């Protein structure tokens, strides 16, 4: 793949870093991590989008502050028959023909800042709480994916033989399945029955159902590259040295191999979170993800499309927020990849 361009554009950068290093009189021992951090710090676009993502997360965390102090309502509270005062006149939150009011800004002291939805719920409040759910699912699912995929990849790559055969064939089957189809099948059957994990039972309408599903179906993206890396790393001298010192398998896997794969994992994390958020939206849109009335960007878009003709803000707002979030993660992720691996071999893909 495309080594030509990144190399020619990145080489001067590396040279610059090296010069800087010698100027600061620390010639030996600049760790790859510090080099990567420096390269990332120089990538202003990636940093800006990373900052945007942090702001989005903070605004989601601040949802109760807005709900309690400004909007004075909850995410699932309906106001079908309420009126608000606008310029001294009483206006229905939802008109008799079912059309809700549009974005008000601060005209009603921040109430219905982004308008109301078909049930008279405050869109801004729902958007913020929906952001909490969508981000929670995206981030938690990605943590689950990383934990499972790294464990499977380590086991398969380290033990090889039948362990590898079992894990790799299992991954082949998962890989054969279109991700959305697998997610929907699991979403429908688990939301009908709930999931018994042995120590606890997850209810069908819980947020954990889509979280676990997305965490599970995304394993294939990461487990294969990890396995490949373990296969090549385990032949290196430092592993032989560890084995000669009598290190146990567990120690070699988690103390010797794992730290060497951190950059691969880090490159994948923003992309995993972005894909998880998109998958959550698709599942919720189809009714196989977050269950109503819980807000998430996917359920809000699904509700909004029904009223698209009269109230386009109900579709545009949650979708725009979703695109902004996923975009910021993808651009930041691209920057992280360039920083960690200037001769990028991992390609941007779905």
């Amino acid at each position, binding site marked *: *793949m*495309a*080594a*030509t*361009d990144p190399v020619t*554009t990145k080489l001067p950068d590396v040279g610059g870093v090296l010069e800087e290093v010698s100027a600061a009189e620390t010639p030996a021992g600049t760790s790859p991590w510090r080099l990567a951090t420096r390269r990332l710090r120089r990538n202003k676009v990636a940093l800006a989008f990373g900052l945007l993502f942090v702001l989005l997360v903070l605004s989601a965390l601040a949802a109760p502050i807005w709900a309690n102090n400004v909007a004075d309502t909850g995410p699932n509270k309906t106001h079908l028959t309420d009126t608000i005062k606008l310029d001294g006149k009483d206006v229905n939150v939802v008109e008799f023909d079912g059309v809700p009011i549009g974005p008000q800004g601060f005209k009603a002291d921040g109430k219905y800042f982004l308008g109301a939805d078909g049930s008279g719920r405050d869109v801004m409040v729902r958007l913020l709480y929906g952001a909490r759910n969508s981000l929670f699912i995206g981030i938690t699912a990605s943590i689950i994916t990383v934990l499972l995929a790294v464990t499977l990849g380590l086991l398969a790559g380290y033990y090889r033989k039948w362990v590898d055969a079992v894990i790799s*064939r299992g991954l*082949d*089957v998962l890989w*054969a*399945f*279109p*991700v*959305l*189809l*697998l997610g*929907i*099948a*699991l*979403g*429908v*059957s*688990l*939301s*009908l*029955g*709930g*999931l*018994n994990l042995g120590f606890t*039972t997850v209810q069908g309408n819980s947020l954990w159902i889509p979280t676990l599903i997305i965490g599970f179906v995304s394993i294939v993206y990461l487990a294969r590259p990890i396995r490949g890396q373990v296969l090549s790393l385990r032949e290196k001298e430092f592993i032989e040295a560890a084995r000669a010192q009598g290190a146990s398998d567990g120690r070699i896997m988690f103390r010797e191999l794992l730290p060497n794969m951190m950059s691969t994992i880090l490159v994948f994390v923003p992309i995993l979170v*972005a894909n998880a958020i*998109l998958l959550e*939206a*698709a599942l919720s*849109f*189809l*009714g*196989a993800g977050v269950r109503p009335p819980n807000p998430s960007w*996917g359920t809000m*878009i699904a509700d909004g*499309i029904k009223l*698209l*003709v009269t109230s*386009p803000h109900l*579709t*545009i707002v949650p*979708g725009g927020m*979703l*695109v902004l979030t*996923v*975009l910021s993660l*993808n*651009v930041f992720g*691209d920057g992280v990849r360039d920083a960690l691996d200037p001769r990028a071999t991992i*390609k*941007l*893909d*779905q």
Partner: protein
Amino acid sequence: MTAFIVRRLIAMVLVLFAVSVLVFLIFNVIPNGNPEDRMAGKQATPLVIEQIKKEWGFDKPLYTQYGKMMQKLFSGQLISQTNRVNVTEEIKRGLPRTLALAIGAALLWFATGVALGLFTAVRAGQWSDRLVTVLAIIGISMPVFWLGALARNYLGYEWGIFPNGGYTEIGEEGLWQWFYHLLLPWIVLATLFIGVYSRVVRSTVLDTINDDYVRTARAKGLAERRVLVRHVLRNSLIPVVTLWGLDFGLVLGGGAILTETVFDLQGVGQYFAESIGRLDVPPVLAVTMYGAFFVVVFNTLVDIVYAALDPRIRLS
């Protein structure tokens, strides 16, 4: 080549079996509670539940249940729990529409992606790199159902440039109306891929453009256009075609479901989406199984074609 095909076909049968077991587990074993309760839906009488239990063999051992499920799925006698319509018939009815959507979109994104990738490779430099990168990132950051809904509402309903959703049969309204109704769904679905494909094409073209045989072709005095199309593009398209085959399978089991629903094309995807909305298990089960089977078979075909085109694959 024969050995390769046989090997690939055996692997395919094994994967198909594993996929069918996975689907069986997902619907009958992994969730909490009784499978007959889930199958029956929300407002079922005890009598109906009892009947389903007997019909699907849920009181028998798991392997009998698996056998019953496969028999039901592949004998074409699966019936929806909510409206008693034959599931296989519904899928057969919707399939041409789904295929029309997926194939058209795939051709569109392939042609546009290759053209744009080649163009930006020839004009290699910072801005063309940025252009395809930005397009690619936007493409993978947009939920297709959101883009589709907005496109239909504004370009279709409000401004009337395109029809406001729906599908017309070629036999009824003619070829042009069919094409016209599918055009916007095609564009929306293809938009997600054009950026990624141009990026891949650009980089593979840049990899081959400095190869010796390309220099030879130039030295022979061939026209630049001929060098690009016959020598550079032909060799750099091999990985792109494989990627294309894989993505096509994924689109059928993913993007097409969402796009169809938004544009009201009444294909398999929309049937699937409506069944999900009603939590109607038999159609969801059937589409999942058929969809996964289709993707597995299709990927095998892509592998075989790839091996036929590129002998190096067969040996590894």
